[in-house]
């Protein structure tokens, strides 16, 4: 339901056939991967060793993927997702450190700070007409320096010493640790609901809100959008701001997993941010996004990570295989499109 791409299975004549729906392929692939790893290493299904950390990781990286998806909708890129997350974590840490605010307030402050950075990126892009790739890459570079300087200025080292109440629980607990009488929650980490809310809200924005739909129209054809009366500049700025807010949330979730607001947060966000949406069928050219696909894409990537990890592959090998799998998936996607087009669906 959170799928904002034109549904591929509608309109019997001259439409994409069912097998061309990428989401179904992803579900099959995910199931196959889980089955494969569970067969090779039964420990893959161990709740506390594997499944709980896996869910926490998926939660973080789904939000990272959504942050990129927010601007892919325009056909733009946000090369600064990682550093926006780092800046958000810094802002959250700082307001807690200085004003001793509670966890939700720190979270909101972090998201707002990153959102402003995103809006700034969007503003520069619309004002100068420079490609989003270049603008956000430059912004990323500037932020690498800024975040280090800020941590050096405001903390004893590269991380804030304290953290708001509740952060430690987010790291260690699952809902199974909270019981009402004899009834305890399922073994799901506390990050999951945050990601779930993000997924639902982003799905809502692109599927049912005026702003989200207009963003997609700008991505589909900027000239036509302008001539249809859509405030194109505002939509570009809003999409980038949304990207920032989500990057900020991801930064906070990772800080909660790590147990500290530190300068290194977001370092590994860039590649996964593209990986998940693109695997999930979001177009790089803009105009169509798939929130559900992003969730599935993230799950696949994280399952592969965890699985290969359990099979004792080294980190470098992991990266090699992830890269190969991405290339393979994208090639298959292209083949699927070409075949679908030959069957009478115009390009």
């Amino acid at each position, binding site marked *: 339901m959170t799928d904002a791409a*034109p*549904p591929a299975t*509608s*309109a*019997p*004549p*001259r*439409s994409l056939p069912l097998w061309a729906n990428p989401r179904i392929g992803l579900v099959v692939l995910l199931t196959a991967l889980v089955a494969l790893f569970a067969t090779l290493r039964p420990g893959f299904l161990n709740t506390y060793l594997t499944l709980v950390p896996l869910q926490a990781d998926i939660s973080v990286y789904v939000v990272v993927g959504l942050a990129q998806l927010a601007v892919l909708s325009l056909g733009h890129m946000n090369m600064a997702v990682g550093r926006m997350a780092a800046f958000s974590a810094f802002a959250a840490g700082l307001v807690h450190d200085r004003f001793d605010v509670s966890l939700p307030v720190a979270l909101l402050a972090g998201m707002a700070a990153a959102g402003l950075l995103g809006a700034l990126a969007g503003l520069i892009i619309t004002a100068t007409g420079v490609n989003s790739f270049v603008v956000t890459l430059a912004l990323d570079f500037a932020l690498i320096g800024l975040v280090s300087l800020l941590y050096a200025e405001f903390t004893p080292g590269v991380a804030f010493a304290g953290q708001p109440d509740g952060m430690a629980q987010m790291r260690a607990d699952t809902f199974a640790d909270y019981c009402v009488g004899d009834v305890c929650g399922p073994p799901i980490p506390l990050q999951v609901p945050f990601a779930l809310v993000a997924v639902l809200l982003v799905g*809502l924005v692109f599927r*049912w*809100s*005026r*702003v989200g*739909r*207009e963003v*997609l*129209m700008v991505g*589909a*054809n900027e*000239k*036509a*959008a*302008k*001539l*249809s*009366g*859509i*405030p194109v500049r505002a939509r570009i700025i809003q999409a980038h701001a949304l990207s920032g807010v989500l990057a900020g949330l991801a930064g906070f979730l990772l800080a909660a997993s790590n147990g500290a607001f530190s300068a290194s947060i977001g370092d590994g966000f860039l590649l996964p941010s593209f990986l998940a949406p693109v695997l999930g069928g979001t177009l790089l050219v803009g*105009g*169509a996004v798939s929130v559900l696909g992003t969730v599935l894409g993230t799950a696949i990537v994280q399952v592969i990570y965890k699985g290969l990890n359990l099979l004792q592959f080294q980190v470098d090998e992991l990266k090699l295989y992830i890269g190969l799998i991405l290339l393979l998936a994208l090639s298959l996607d292209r083949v699927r499109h070409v075949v679908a087009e030959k069957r009478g*669906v*115009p*390009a």
Partner: protein
Amino acid sequence: MTLLAEGLTKSFPGVRALSGATLSVRPGSVHALLGENGAGKSTLVKILTGVYRPDAGRILLDGAPMRFGSPLEALRAGIGVVHQERNLVPEFTVAENIALQHLPRRFGLVDRARMRAEARRCLDLLDLDLDPDTRVGDLSVAQAQLVEIAKALSVDTRVLLLDEPTASLTGDEADRLYRIVARLTATGHAVVLVSHKLEEVFAVADTVTVLRDGHSVAEAQPLADYTRDQIVDLMVGRAHAAVELGARTVDRGAVPALALTGVSTGHGHRDLDLTVAKGEIVGLYGLVGAGRTELARALLGLDTITAGEVAVHGTPARITSVGQALGEHRIGYVPEDRKGEGLFLEQPIARNVGVTVWRRLSRAGLLPDRAERDLVARYTDLLGIRLASPRQLAGQLSGGNQQKVSLAKWLAADCDILIVDEPTVGIDVRTKAAFHELLAGLAAQGRAILLISSDLPEIVTLADRIAVMADRRIRGTLPNTRAYDEMAQRVIRLVHAPLPQEVR
């Protein structure tokens, strides 16, 4: 080399662009290929240069049948072309552009010395004193045009096709170009000239072929046998099948829906006066490049209006964006380039129609699916757009239905002033007639319509009054009698009337 093309037929989905057209060109002559917009000139040029393959008919060069699989094959056979739009790489030098299709190589690398010498040779053919190492992006429009001709001559070209070569040139530059054309014919080249500018055609061409609706109505006749009016008659056709739409009653006493008084724009329009009343269709006729689309863009706030006043329903309006034109003044614009500007081809039809009404339908920022679906259904029904499903992509529709979708979004947004730009270009005759009835019906319901068109029969069929624009000035406004021959003569005369002297 004699070029003979016989019985060329080419259909596109829904349109028959050429049906049995014939063109015969002799060496040493300038042959004019004339016809109204949509008569099939460009299709013919594209078949001769290997861009399209004809459905039927044959091409003979000196009596030998030819089959061109690609533009390169046509070029190698000796047919060069300078298309209307620029086809040079701005970042490359003059020499690189000229030699682009057959770069001289040595050891697998480009032999720059030979490339430069080759370019020099082609430039000399045209008496052009240009440095072959100049970047093409640094040239003037006219120079770039001449470089294109040099490029077309770089292979052993015997037949040169020029498609509207002077559209972006000044008078002096055009004179220079035609001196070069005269030299080429003197050395035995054949030149085919496609142009809308009849003065130029009469000045330089020897023979003429006139196309109308894909047929050749005059085949390789000596141009001297015709007067200008006769050529115009051939182009527009006497046996013009007009749809009788019946006159509308326009209340001229009322405040006009749209009134321009002394409007000048940043695009060079000067002192335009134009009114469109409620329930009236005003046709804005002119040749390509007359500045009509630019005027529409200025009215929508996409270009600046530097002087004068635009009044909407009697109230002066300062429009700065399409959103404002739509939201505050209910002005809709159906652009000429429907694929590039009118539609979101990769989006469902419902989104294409709904895009203008989301601002009105949204509740707390969210859009109820149902309201949109109902609205879209209403307007697709009203305009007779046949869809498999509202989720069908706009790119899957035929040209006529695409144009209806492009119009539907403004009707859905309840616009009462519509600016419709070249609505039936590339649309087949039957759909065209249906579209005309539709526009007439919209006017009859009280909407004010400014119809921009280069299709004179269309304007005469639809308009209540015809404003004629040339060189960014309105040359005159005529009440439309709907007598086609009479109106065609008067309009064409206005287009070609000398510009009244003005104080600079």
